[in-house]
């Protein structure tokens, strides 16, 4: 078995490894284990959802454009604190969610960092079903045998400028 693994190109091994990480990340979100999810982040990590319809969503900075979400680590921490309170009314009772990641492509890797993209379709079930679709850009840093998230950038794909689903109240 290990001989087979060793024959795989390095980028496939990386892909399998990061996919394993991404599936665990998504599972924590679907289980609303938000403290554990936050623990996946580097202490300088960020979580962003770029503006819908902006020309350069992969590179634009939240210092110059009005993002849907633009959290540095401190605000992300506060977002998690908020989302776990019943007074975060929009998510109380909590919605059911399923985060589905696919088309994982490792774009760049070295001994310390891995940059990848994947498509996502995430469903939120609360008084009906709403669906979010798009691309996630992840910047991971290696931490022993595992990773920490340095940046998660969510880019929504849609043909109309408005969000069908009203809010991005849960973590995408």
């Amino acid at each position, binding site marked *: 078995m290990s001989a087979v693994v060793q024959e795989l190109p390095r980028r496939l091994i990386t892909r399998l490894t990061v996919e394993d990480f991404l599936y665990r990340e998504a599972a924590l979100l679907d289980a609303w284990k938000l403290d554990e999810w936050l623990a996946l982040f580097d202490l300088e990590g960020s979580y962003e959802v770029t503006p819908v319809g902006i020309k350069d969503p992969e590179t634009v900075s939240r*210092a110059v454009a009005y993002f849907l979400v633009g959290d540095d680590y401190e605000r992300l921490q506060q977002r998690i604190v908020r989302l776990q309170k019943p007074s975060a009314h*929009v998510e109380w009772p909590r919605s059911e969610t399923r985060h589905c990641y696919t088309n994982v492509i490792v774009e760049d890797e070295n001994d310390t960092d891995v940059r990848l993209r994947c498509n996502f379709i995430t469903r939120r079930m609360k008084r009906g079903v709403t669906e979010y679709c798009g691309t996630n850009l992840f910047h991971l840093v290696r931490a022993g045998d595992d990773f920490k998230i340095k940046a998660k950038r969510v880019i929504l794909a849609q043909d109309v400028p408005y969000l069908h689903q*009203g809010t991005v109240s849960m973590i995408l």
Partner: protein
Amino acid sequence: MAWSENYRSRFLDVDLDKGRFRVSRTAFSDPAVFQEEKEKILYRSWLYLGHESEFPNRNDFLVRQVLDAEILVTRDSQLRVNAFYNTCGHRGALLCRERAGNKALLTCPYHAWTYRTDGSLLTRGKVGGYCKEMDDDRAYDLKPVPQLAQRGGFYFVNFSADTPTLDEHLGKAGEWIDTLLEHSAEGLEVISGLQEYQIRANYKLMCENSMDGYHLVPTHGSYLDYQRHMLKGMEVPSLGGHVIALGNGHSGLQSNLAVGRPIAQWMPSWGEPARTLIEQKKEELVGRLGQERGEFIANTNRIFCLFPLTLILDSQSIQVRTMVPIAHDRMISRIWLFGAVNEDPEIRRVRLEGALSFLGPGGFATPDDVEMLEISQRGYAIGGVEWNDISKGFHAGEDTADGELDQHIDNEIQMRTYWVEYDRIMNDGPSHDAQNVRVTEAAL
């Protein structure tokens, strides 16, 4: 119009003895009422279109939905701003399908009829077959929306021609727009990143909610916790201020709650580099406007509602919010964020941080508002209960339509003034001036 007797209509129930002011839920839940208000109010009123900074250059264009209409806004070769229906004069196809751009000529993809940005038809593509007199009266030019006007660079349209002018409609509320222009000697601009989201609720709920001081603590407790955290030991200020009826259904809310204002009220969480810049900005304001006015502009948070569906927020930042009513129980809400032209990048950064954390579909507050609006709409759909209550602060003699000022910003005069105007138009009532005469005569 000061209340001196009880009043009952399709939409309002005003009982002075009980201090009750109630609104019929049918105004939110009845599709027939929605159709009626489109005809009587929405298609006869001034509706926000966009800001001059969104189309600064010759031949800039953008396409924007207002009510059911797709509007093509252009700045023509003479630098005039135009608002046309975005449909070809030939066979009606959408003329522009991109949301924005810059083109000297606008060509319909169907048969290549081509227009200049001032709306005039230049060519029909394939020539021949037409009588040469056919359009010598310019019958095939792009059709402009009946009225387009601006106040301080904020453009509004009106789908009816025979209405009061924009300035007449705005009245005192126009001065609330003018105050925004004092923020910067170099003007304001829209920051890229339009926030637009659909809500399964009636658009009037958004007008009420955006001006509602009463809901702040119960609905936004988790945001206020966050704010306390970000104040990092600074005292949480009390919620002082006032709400005021501005006439014609407009209203304003003013408060000195320290929320952090990039112009020019510093917050500890913004860091020291921003502090120096904000202090400089405040000096500039005081130098330009004088001590008292400079302090006012720096520290005063204002939210005002321009009847029937525009809201302007001047708090953590300047935001214009308007709605596209889709049905009695559905709207699209839009938020544009504004900053000063040539703003220091560090100030721009903290402006965006402040705007992000509170407002918008991913903020710490707006999602909870969306939830409240949607569960209210669902509550009306249950049926069986007729009235909503907005009596907080109400009393006999209140000048609900115009001029009443209430020192408690969690009272509800700002909603009552909206509904009095709504009720008047829907019931084909006379204007306020005529009503004043009637009330005065009755008093005599």
